[in-house]
């Protein structure tokens, strides 16, 4: 008798689950048309959801295609919605840039007076900021989904530390190294290595400095 009741209860539960799922609206991700917003929201979801159980893995650990299967696996394990899967994949695939690839050919804007290869010599890391790159820095912060995890001027996510005032809290050498090699001071940092060009690094610093003013 107990066994029969359990079977009935199981059937009811199954019907209930199916019913609830059919009533649910389609995911928020389905309405996302803005690619940059999708990537930024993906960064936030990646940090929030994956970090619940384990250190988030770097986007460069897997190929774009492999991430599709890995996230399908994690969708079941971590109870992710379809919308969250699309957001996370957008972020992982957009930031899955191989840092081993050569930095894009430098433009004239890359040449920062006094600066050499970041990370090579400490003295060169302290080159002055080029404020004329500030506008470009704002674009880079959005294109690379930095604001998915970090807040700046009230905009952005809360997975990583605030960018407001970071230019004062940290020295330029540290920031230049962090942007080029996010795990140099923290082996478990979830910040992906975005293979930023020297111009992009300088532009971000300029934007952060401009925001301070």
């Amino acid at each position: 008798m107990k066994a029969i009741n359990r079977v009935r209860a199981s059937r009811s539960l199954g019907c209930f689950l199916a019913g609830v799922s059919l009533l649910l609206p389609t995911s928020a991700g389905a309405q996302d048309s803005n690619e940059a917003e999708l990537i930024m929201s993906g960064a936030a979801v990646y940090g929030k959801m994956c970090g619940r159980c384990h250190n988030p893995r770097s986007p460069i650990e897997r190929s774009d295609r492999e991430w599709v299967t890995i996230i399908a696996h994690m969708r079941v394990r971590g109870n992710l919605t379809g919308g969250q899967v699309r957001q996370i994949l957008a972020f992982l695939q957009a930031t899955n840039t191989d840092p081993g690839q050569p930095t894009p050919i430098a433009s004239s804007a890359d040449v920062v007076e006094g600066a050499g290869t970041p990370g090579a010599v400490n003295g060169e890391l302290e080159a002055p900021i080029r404020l004329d790159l500030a506008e470009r820095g704002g674009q880079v912060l959005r294109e690379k989904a930095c604001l998915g995890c970090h807040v700046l001027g009230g905009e952005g996510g809360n997975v990583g530390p605030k960018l407001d005032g970071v230019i004062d809290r940290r020295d330029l050498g540290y920031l230049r190294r962090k942007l080029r090699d996010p795990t140099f001071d923290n082996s478990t940092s979830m910040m992906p290595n975005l293979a930023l060009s020297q111009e992009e690094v300088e532009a971000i610093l300029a934007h952060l400095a401009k925001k301070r003013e």
Partner: protein
Amino acid sequence: MTAMGIKQSARWWSGIFCLALALAPTDLLAQETEAVEEEPVGERVVPTNAFLVSGYGTVGYVARLEGEDENAFTASFSPILLFQFQDRILFEAEFEFELTEGVTETGLEYAQLDYVATDNLTVTAGKFLVPFGVFGERLHPTWINKFPSSPPIYGHHVAEFGVEPLFPILSDVGIMGRVTIAPEPWQISLNGYVTQGPALEGEFDLEDEEEFHAPEFEFPASSADNNTGKMPGARIDVALPPWFEVNGSFLNGDYDDEGVLDLTGWNIAAEFRHSNFEARGEYLQVRQELETEEGFPTLRRHGFYAQAAYRFGPWEPVFRWTKIFDDKLEDDKVAEGARQIGIGIDYWFSPSVAVMAGFELNDESGVELDNDRFVIHVGFGY
């Protein structure tokens, strides 16, 4: 109306509700299907077949303060095979190879087929990690578990404790449905499943025992069930990620061959996270019917573990406290409880590679050997 009548009535109404849903949702279903197909899937999520190997493993050493003969090196390797068929079907399996007393033990932790029915519903069939509590399903991989042994209430990886784990559940065979919704900023999931359920481990006759000890049960997850009863269970998760999550789990099944003796388990789990600090804990209780000449008294066993960790750069100290309370048959104490205090430290080389070292202070009543021990391993996920 009797309780049974209310249950029957509720089932009827839920049946009518589901039937109405099944008849009405032509448009809803169409919308859902359309939405999935019109996603930016075409560009990013290429729906092709794929095969992938992932997994984790450890190499380590266990040293006891006494009983040196039992000091030993340890090693385990758990490959996970993933086969994705287009974008809706995933077959996944995890194997476990572990050295135990000189013998290589092999196991199939899970082998399941997942069907993504909608954005919010996934149906799983086969042998799967049972969503009872959170440790077994989410935290048991050795590079994820921050302490180099598993909590004694569950057993599994180097979790010897001298007393039987309260609930030795990891995976079972059956079918499961998961519904997840994410109304910003919340994340709410409901998991419902039916599996083969528990079975009595070995022969047991309460009358033949000189001293009382609980009949041991297991989740054999074999292709044959030991009785006709199945085990329904459910877990609900409510989370405010990444800061907070609470989970409630329940399951019920028969564990004897005749399908007479009832086993009920429930679990409350919670976790809190802020910046580099993380705390989590699980309480579980199991009620197990026994057969005696006087009738079917209920044995109650319960316990918890609580764990906290804080990250300083690559270093992460971990503290874990486990308590198993006295066993009670009805209101009579029939077995002593136990306690474990674990202090450990991890050093992370990367997000998925760490050296984890821990010292366990094991306090077990009725066990003469001081089995306090030191456990160290390198855990890696790939």
